[in-house]
């Protein structure tokens, strides 16, 4: 079966400014693709290109095997949910949802039936006669989803649909979108700048920066094997610790040395990797640095560190220290004995460690 969405060598420029450079993406039926990146990285432009709302300057785009490069948005068999919801202000909720069907000339009975079905799915039956101005943010969001669902398209497009909601509602709606995806088995492309949304929702993530794809992969690939320093730094909260270090081979394995401002360097042995350049950037997730007294175990190596700041966050406590001239965050157990200004024995787990070249930022292992 043809991929549901296939983008080949897509370029997009406004005048002489290149917004998207050589984009290649393809997803299968049922995939949840998330485009993530900082603002201005071109992710929303790419989504608009997929929708046909922006013409593309080069390359091809096909949906479900049909070439859609120059096809009008209405003929692409897509539905889109916008950041501002873009509900038609003068129409009732019911009219908003059925507007597309009305335009396409679907008969009244089918319209009513589909409206009823979608309203039931999203639990918005009591709102059908209201105008968008009378709805709360979360309700508007649901109506916008309803407008997309009623179309029953090949591909759903979401443009930062949750970023106008408050924090609590955002998490609720996130779960709901995920549930919807599982229930419908539909294919979706979702744009967000929130890396947690990306991690929780996606089956496939595209990380973008400056109009260039940095990495495509499953959430676990992106999280555990970031392709370069940008992805490593962008995905994950708190961010991955990126510490300048030097390496050399010895009998037991790769010896990784991290300099410290006052005191002896930390030396760790990595038995999984070898033959790396001398100067590297060591990438360690905060959860791979633990309180040695609470969480030991195989593969962990202990080092005594001076804790600068302790930030309790409920479930976890973050401890910040200085290693290799950088702030390094450790995600410790809530019951840790870490105290700011005192030494603590920390256990480093190099099992999932990443190495990057300091000059190019590319992954080395």
């Amino acid at each position: 079966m043809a991929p549901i969405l296939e983008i080949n060598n897509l370029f997009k420029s406004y005048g002489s400014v290149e917004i998207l450079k050589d984009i290649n993406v393809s997803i299968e039926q049922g995939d949840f693709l998330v485009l993530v990146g900082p603002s201005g990285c071109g992710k929303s432009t790419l989504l608009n290109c997929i929708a046909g709302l922006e013409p593309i300057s080069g390359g091809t785009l096909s949906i479900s095997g049909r070439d859609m490069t120059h096809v009008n948005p209405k003929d692409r068999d897509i539905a889109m949910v916008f950041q501002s919801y873009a509900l038609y202000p003068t129409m009732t909720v019911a009219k908003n949802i059925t507007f597309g069907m009305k335009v396409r000339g679907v008969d009244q009975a089918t319209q009513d039936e589909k409206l009823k079905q979608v309203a039931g799915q999203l639990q918005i039956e009591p709102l059908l006669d209201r105008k968008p101005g009378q709805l709360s943010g979360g309700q508007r969001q649901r109506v916008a989803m309803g407008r997309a669902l009623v179309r029953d398209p090949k591909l759903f497009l979401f443009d930062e649909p949750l970023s106008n909601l408050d924090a609590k509602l955002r998490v609720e709606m996130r779960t709901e979108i995920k549930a919807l995806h599982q229930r419908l088995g539909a294919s979706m492309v979702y744009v967000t700048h929130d890396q947690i949304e990306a991690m929780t929702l996606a089956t496939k993530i595209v990380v973008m920066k400056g109009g260039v794809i940095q990495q495509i992969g499953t959430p676990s690939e992106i999280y555990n094997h970031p392709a370069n320093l940008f992805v490593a730094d962008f995905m994950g909260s708190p961010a991955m610790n990126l510490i300048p270090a030097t390496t050399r081979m010895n009998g037991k394995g790769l010896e990784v040395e991290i300099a410290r401002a006052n005191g002896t360097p930390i030396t760790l042995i990595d038995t999984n990797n070898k033959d790396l350049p001398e100067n590297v950037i060591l990438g360690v997730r905060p959860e791979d640095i633990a309180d040695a007294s609470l969480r030991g175990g195989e593969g962990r190596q202990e080092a005594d560190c001076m804790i600068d700041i302790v930030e309790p966050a409920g479930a976890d406590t973050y401890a910040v220290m200085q290693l290799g001239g950088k702030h390094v965050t450790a995600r410790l157990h809530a019951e840790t004995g870490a105290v700011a200004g005192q030494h603590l024995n920390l256990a480093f787990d190099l099992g999932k460690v990443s190495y990057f070249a300091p000059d190019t930022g590319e992954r080395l292992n």
Partner: protein
Amino acid sequence: MTDISYTPPQSGSRMAKIVLRWGLYLMLGVFILFYLMPLFVMITTSFKSLDEIRTGDLISLPREVTLEAWRTAWSEACTGIQCEGVRPYFWNSVLIAIPAVLISTLIGALNGYVVAQWRFRGANLFFALMLFGCFIPFQVVLLPMARMLGLMGMAGTIPGLIFVHVIYGLGFTTLFFRNYYVSIPSELTKAAKVDGAGFFRIFWSIFLPLSLPIIVVTVIWQFTQIWNDFLFGVSFSQAGTQPVTVALNNIVNSTTGVKAYNVDMAAAIIAALPTLFVYVVAGKYFVRGLTAGSVKG
């Protein structure tokens, strides 16, 4: 309209506040009198007989109310050699103003919709040129327009005057609608495009229903401009197609012998009534529409 709430300073005596407040009322009262005086004189004079005007006081109320001057002004006053009153010219004005207002408002709405929501190469330049059109003094265009109307065979006709008013109204109507539509999120257009609606469908189903305030503003503006126009009316009309403003001028200026002030006043009020009517009916929307441009999406 934004309500500016003013919190008076806590210090200062109660007396001073009252004095200030009454001072304000007094000043406003003087201004009101100043502005209403001419209207008062016009109305009272129009109900007086000529004898009474000659013998009486300018600002006194009529001793005997007579509608004679109004009747004369409407159907008998002479505009040069014809003596039919302002009636035929009043209808000329209606025939010019209503189509010209409707057409210029509709085209202005479409223009504004395109410039604000369907950006094309050179859209800004296009809009800047339209805006420039608002600032061209009408005297400058009289000769070229006369030639143009002659070439089109519309010189001296009512359709010709409609055409002129539509053309010179477009700058303002486009400006009004463009500024209104530019505040409507472009995602609305995008959503409608994905829903399958085309250019006119989006305009008709989504933008026009949102536009009531700005339509009211534009209609009032255009109606006032076109109804009150004298320059185009006097330049591009001929006997039989003159608007009421030109007829009023002729009535006042072409009387021989005794000046019939009461007839002049009645004719002037008749000529001004439609614009007054539009303001009274739609005035509150006018202020609202001018200030409240934004639409929550």
